[in-house]
C-alpha cells in the first residue's frame, strides 16, 4: 500500500498554517505545502503532485469548496482525497462538505500532535484495496 507522503493544504490564517506545517512536516513526517488562499492553490498545487488535499472551508476570496472545484477541474486532481478543516461543526455542515466530495472533516480546534495520524488514517481508509 502506498504511504501518504505529499499533502497540499490551504489555510488563510498564518498561525494555523504554520501549525499545520509543523504538525505535518516536523511532527508527522509528511511533506506538506501550504497555500494562503484558494487562488494560489489552484494555480500552483499541481506542481507538488499532492496525494491528499487539506482545505480550510471559510476563507476570504474563494472558499474551500470553490478551491476544491477549481482543483478538480485540473488533470490529476479528480481522485485526490480531500479533507476539510472547519470551525463550523454542525452535522448539516459536515453533511454538506461530504456531499462536495470530502473524505473526512476535521473540526477546529484540532490537536496538531494528532493531525498527521488523522490524515494517515483517512488515507488508509481511502486507498485500501476493495475486497
Amino acid at each position, binding site marked *: 500500500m502506498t504511504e501518504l507522503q505529499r499533502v497540499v493544504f490551504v489555510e488563510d490564517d498564518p498561525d494555523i498554517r504554520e*501549525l499545520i506545517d509543523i504538525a505535518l512536516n516536523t511532527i508527522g513526517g509528511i511533506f506538506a505545502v501550504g497555500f494562503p488562499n484558494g487562488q494560489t492553490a489552484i494555480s500552483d498545487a499541481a506542481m507538488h503532485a499532492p496525494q491528499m488535499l487539506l482545505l480550510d472551508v471559510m476563507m476570504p476570496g474563494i472558499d474551500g469548496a470553490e478551491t476544491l472545484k477549481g482543483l478538480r477541474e485540473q488533470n490529476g486532481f479528480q481522485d485526490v482525497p480531500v479533507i476539510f478543516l472547519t*470551525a463550523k461543526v*454542525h452535522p448539516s455542515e459536515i453533511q454538506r462538505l461530504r456531499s462536495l466530495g470530502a473524505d473526512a472533516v476535521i473540526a477546529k480546534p484540532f490537536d496538531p*500532535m494528532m493531525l498527521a495520524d488523522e490524515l494517515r488514517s483517512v488515507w488508509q481508509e481511502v486507498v485500501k484495496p476493495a475486497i
Partner: protein
Amino acid sequence: MEISAAPLIDVLESGGRRSLILLALVFGAITIGCRFLTNGLSSLTNQFVQKGNKIQVSIMDGSPLPKMQNYGIVELDAIGGVVRDMSAQLAHTFREHQELNHSLEERVKLRTKELDLLSQVVKQTTNGVIVADTFGKVTWTNEAFTKLTGYHLDEMLGKTPGAVLQKQAPPNELLENMRHGLAKRQGFHVELINHRKDGTLYWNEVSCSPMFDKTGQHTGFIAIQNDVTARRETSLALQETLERLHLGSELASMGVWSYDSAAQTVEWNDQNSAMHGIPQTADNKYQLWEERVHPDDLSSMTSLLRAGQSGDEIAFEYRFRHPELGERLISCRVHITSVGENEARFYTGANIDITEARKTSQRLANAAAKTSAILDNALDSIITMDSRGHIVSFNHAAESMFGYRVDEIIGKSINVLMSAKYSDHHPNSIVAYLERRQGRMIDKVTEAEARRANGDVFPIELAVSKSVDDTGIVFIGIVRDLTERKKIDLMKSEFLAMVSHELRTPLTSIQGTLSLVKAGVFGELDARGQRLISSSLDNSETLASMVDEILDLEKLASGKLEVYVERINVGELLNRTSNTIQSYCDKFSVGLSLEAIEPEISIEADPKRAVQVLTNLISNAVKFSPTEDQVRVETTQHKGYVRISVIDNGPGIPDDKHDMLFQKFSQIDGSDSRNNTGTGLGLAISRELMDSMGGRIGFTSAKDAGSTFWAEFRISTELQASSVTTTIDQ
C-alpha cells in the same frame, strides 16, 4: 130421527094389510110432524149461530152485545140468558187482555228501541267497554276496547282486565281504591297506566260500575275505558309550564302587578314587593311606590300610560329609590285594558330589576370598547372571519400590513390575503382548509405566506383560534409579519457562523501552539513552564467547550440543534466517552471506572451527542468529587432502556436546588471557584439532547450523600443499523 122397521114388518106380516096401511098413515103423519119439528129446531139453531157470530164480532170490536130474543121456550130462553151473560163476561175479559196485550207490545217496542239505541251506542262509542261477572272475570268487550288495547274478546274472556292490561301493579293507593270499590260493589273511577297488546303504554281512565238485576241481585260489573294519554300529557305539560312560570317568576325576581284606575287599588306579588322594598302588608303601597319613583320617570311613564289604548303593551324603564338598596333601575312592561263606557282602565304589568344587568352591560360595553381599542392599537394584525371565510373585522395593523382599507376588505374572502400557495389550493373555502388541518392550524402558531394588496408575498406567523358567537363560528387570526424577523434570523445565523469561525480560529491557533509547546516540539520546558502551559491548554479547552455550549444553546433556541440517531453499542459509546473525558479526570486526580453489563447491546443515539451528554455528566461528577476519589459509571437495563449512571461521592445536591438543576445558566455552588467553571448550560443542553434522541435524563441526590446522574437510551429494535435524522423543532 131413525125408527127401526123390523117390528112393523113383523106386525104387518102378522096383523094384515090394514094394520100395515094404518101404520103407514101414522108413520107418514109422524114423519111430517117430525119434519116440522126439525125445521123449527133448525131455524132456532141458525138464529143462535147468527147471534153467536154477532157476539164474537162485538167482543172483538168492542161494540155493544146483541140482545137475545125471547123464544117463549123456557130452555131456550134460559140458554140465551146464559149465553148473553157469558158473552158479556167474555167481552170484558177479552177487552182487558186486549188492553194488556197492547200495553205489553208498546213496552216491548220501547225496550227494543232502547236496546237498539244502547247497542248502537256501545258499538259506536270510542270508549272501551268491558262487562265482567261478579268475580271480575270478563264476559264481554266491545270493538272500541279491541281498538284501544289490541286485545280481542276471545283473548279477554274469563280473565280479569288488570291481569292482561297491567304488566306492573298500579300504585298501592290506587290498587286499594279499586279493590275497595269492587268488594263493596260501589265501583270506582281511576286513571292508571295500561299496556296495549303491542307493549305501548297509555293512560287509561276507567269508570267501573256494578250491575244489578230487577231483583237487586248483583250480576257483575261494567267498566268504561278511555285513553286519556293526550289529556294527561297536556295536563302535565300545563302543570309543568305553570310550575316553571312560577319558578321562573321567582328565579327571575319578576314583579307582577295590577292597578285598577277606577278603584285606585294596586295588587302585586311578593317579588314586586321585595323589588321595591315596600311591604306587601302596607296599606298605601301605590302612594309609597309613587313617592319613590324618580319624578322625571314618573311623569314620562304617566304620560305614556294615559296615551295608551286598550290592548296596548307599553314598555319603559324607571329609576326607583329602594329604601335599602338605593337607586334601582326597573324595566316594566304594561298591558292596558279598558272596560265599559266610563273607560275604567286596568293595568297589568311585569317588572324586572335590571340595575345589575345594566351595570354588567355597561361594563361589557366598556370592555368591548377597550378590546376594540386594543385591537386597533395592536402591533399584530388581527383579522376575524366567519364560517364561510369572509372577513368580518380587520384592525389598523392589518390595514398597514396588507395595504387594504377596512371598508374595502370587509366581506371579502380571506383568500385575497393569502399567497397563491394557500389560496389556489383552497380557492373555495379557507375554512375547510383550516378545519381539515385543524390539528396543525387551530390554536397553534404556524408559519405561512400572505399577500399584500400590491401583490407582494411575505412570510407571516399565523395563530388561528376558533370561537362561537351569536352569528356562528368565527375564526380569529393573529398575523405577524415575519419579513424583518426572517432577515434578522438570517443575519443571526450568519453572525453565529462568523462567531464560530472567528472564535475557533484563534482558539485553534492557541490550543495548537500550546499543545506543541507542551509536547516539547520547541524544546523542553522546566516544571514551572510545563505547569503553566498545561493550565493554559486546559483553559483554552474550557473556552472551546464554552463556545460549543453557547452555540448549542443558540441552536436550541432557534430549533436548529440537529441530532442523527443511529445504532451504537453501549461498549463503544463508553469507550468513546472514556477517551474524551479521561484527561479531564486525570487533571482532577479523580479515578473513572466504567462497568458495562452486556456491552454489545445496541442503543439508539447520536454517538457524538451521546458522548457529549455522558462527558457532561462525568465532568460534573469529577468536578464535585474529592481528590483521589473515584467516579463510577454503571449500566443497567430497564423496560426497553439502557441506563448509564454516573455515580460520585461528592457533597450531593440540597433538595431546594433540585428544581433548578436542568435550568439554563444554573450553577449550584457559586462560591467554589473550582466547581464554578463552565457556563451552567451543560445539563440544560444534555436534557434537550436526550429528549431529541428519544431518551431520558435524571438524577438522585441528597446533601452529603453523593449524586447519581443517569441518562437512559432506547434499546435498538432494528436488526440493521439505520440512521434517523431528528431536528429539534421548538
